[in-house]
């Protein structure tokens, strides 16, 4: 039996086989959509760039070369150099590590937090639901960027605080989704069966409700990542995110502001990196939605 047959077997023998089979089907469906392939490739390249930055970057991210400052793009410096003679191309490559860290940590903090709060609210209902969703709605109806700015202002500038601030402002959307999903699952018979076996609410939520919310959560998180990247870059641009000399893309654009009228490349080049990576997450998110949630296709 080939691996493919094993993956696509109608009656899987183990949980592993069932999960692997589902993952395989999603993967092949994604491959049929050119845009999601492109998105996936962009993110793959982002991850590889971040991992291999020391070998890929032709120069160091902080090495100054004052004789060669503000040099236009050329064969030696593909994206030119900045006001300290640092190679912008190398800095963009090193910056991918920061972007990936921010995106990854925000997803790791906010998605589980929103998932848990939403599932608890939906599962218990009543006052728990009202209080938790009230808080969620208050957060949802507030401008995210402004809120993140205020949080960073209080916590102090820096990349860790930027991550915390963005995570604090992005969990509510996930709580809403998780609650909606939980409400549809809560009264189904398999949940009743588990409850009658004496499972604790914690066990029901973690073991039986949350796994069913993950696919819609993955879609939403992927789609939201573009926004997270933009917010992080915005914080960096204002000077509240990653601090110099860290090669964060938003902060790099901010440095180039002074030279925008004559040396356009300093501010422009990191922007292209932001756009490409954000587009990648949009494409992949759209593709995932079409595959995992065919109801809302094309919207």
């Amino acid at each position, binding site marked *: 039996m080939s691996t493919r047959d094993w993956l696509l077997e109608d009656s899987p023998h183990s949980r592993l086989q069932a999960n692997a089979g589902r993952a395989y089907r999603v993967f092949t469906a994604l491959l049929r959509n050119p845009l999601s392939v492109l998105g996936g490739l962009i993110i793959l390249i982002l991850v590889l760039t971040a991992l291999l930055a020391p070998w890929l970057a032709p120069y160091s991210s902080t090495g100054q070369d004052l004789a060669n400052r503000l040099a236009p793009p050329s064969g030696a410096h593909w994206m030119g150099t900045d006001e300290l003679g640092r190679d912008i191309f190398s800095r963009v490559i090193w910056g991918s590590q920061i972007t990936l860290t921010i995106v990854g940590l925000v997803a790791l903090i906010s998605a589980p937090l929103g998932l848990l709060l939403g599932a608890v609210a939906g599962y218990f209902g009543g006052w728990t639901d009202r209080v938790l969703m*009230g*808080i969620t*709605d*208050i*957060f949802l*109806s*507030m*401008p*995210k*960027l*402004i*809120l993140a*700015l*205020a*949080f*960073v*202002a*209080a*916590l102090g500038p820096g990349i860790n605080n930027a991550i915390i601030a963005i995570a604090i402002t992005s969990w509510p959307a996930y709580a809403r989704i998780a609650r909606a999903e939980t409400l549809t699952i809560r009264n189904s018979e398999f949940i009743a069966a588990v409850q009658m076996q004496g499972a604790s609410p914690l066990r029901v939520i973690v073991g039986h409700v949350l796994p069913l919310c993950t696919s819609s959560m993955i879609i939403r998180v992927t789609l939201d990542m*573009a*926004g997270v990247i*933009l917010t992080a*870059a*915005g914080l960096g*641009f*204002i*000077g*509240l995110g990653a601090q110099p000399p860290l090669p964060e893309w*938003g902060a790099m*654009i901010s440095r*180039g*502001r002074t030279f*925008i*009228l*004559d040396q*356009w490349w300093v*501010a*422009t080049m990191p*922007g292209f990196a*932001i*756009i490409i990576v*954000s*587009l990648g*997450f*949009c494409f992949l998110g759209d593709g995932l939605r079409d595959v995992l949630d065919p109801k809302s296709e*094309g*919207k």
Partner: protein
Amino acid sequence: MSQNPTTAATLEVAGAASRRTRRRLLAVLGFVATVLLTFLGLLAITFFIGRVIPIDPVLAIVGDRASNEVYQAARVAMGLDQPLPVQFFHYVVNVFSGDLGQSVSTGRSVVEDLSRFFPATLEMATIGIIIGVVLGVPLGVIAASRQGSIIDQIIRVVGLLGYSMPAFWLGLVGLALFYARLRWVGGPGRLDIFYDGLVQPVTGLLLVDSLLAGEIEIFWNAVTHLVLPASVLGFFSLAYIARMTRSFMLDQLSQEFVTTARVKGVPERLVIWRHAFNPIRVPLITVIGLSYAGLLEGSVMIETVFSWPGIGNYLTTALLNADMNAVLGSTLVIGAVFIFINKISDVLYRVLDPRAR
């Protein structure tokens, strides 16, 4: 039942009418309650940010060299010796009586600063949303009625870029291209320096004030300065509005009454603009409202890029000076306007759309 049937019927009707009024009243009360609760939540968050997170707000004011007496006096003067709920109560009372504290960097009260800077933001965001609506709605309709055409593809790309392009970056690129290279528009700021302060502020909206004063030259100068930042904002609202219009229109165009109209021989232009477009006007209002609220948020970045003397610029300057009163005051005002527009467009939707009643 011995009662006259007609009176019973009238009573029934009257009862239904009063029940409807009561339901409406309850809806209005519910709306007011949710808005107030959301505002209170916003206040709780800004209170939390301002009083709880900083390690020691007293130290931030008196400095770490102050003697113990000075420190304690400042602590009592700031009300920080009282329990948190009492502090929060005082904070809410202060905010509702229009006291947001002093700004450390400008030396004026935050409320005065905000009322001085708000018109500039309002002017830019309003022109931005006008650009977004005037271009976005027709483009969205055309994209939906000619699926797969060039306009449809352009709308798609614009929509995606609106999601993935940093606003401040687009602003900078615009400055480099249209100001530095092509010299089509004015540079940063609201006016050229030699026009500054020539017009008496009446409304604070320069376009209006300069016309009121009869200064056409200043008006044109203000326009050249406004057009680029407003277009950048307009681009993002255009992207969103066009995408939503397209998807609403596609929903309508696939309905049976559209097919019926076409079969009856109604001209395609009428099918699109009357039969399909009319039902989506109401949801579009919500979209436009949300987009307008989003522009207020987006203006923070754009104002920084264009040195535009609005609330966003005030906020970012305050952030860098650790001027907490100013930060929280602008957060509060932007948040309140944002919430208000959000809720209003929500209510408008319910009032105007018979299906949502």
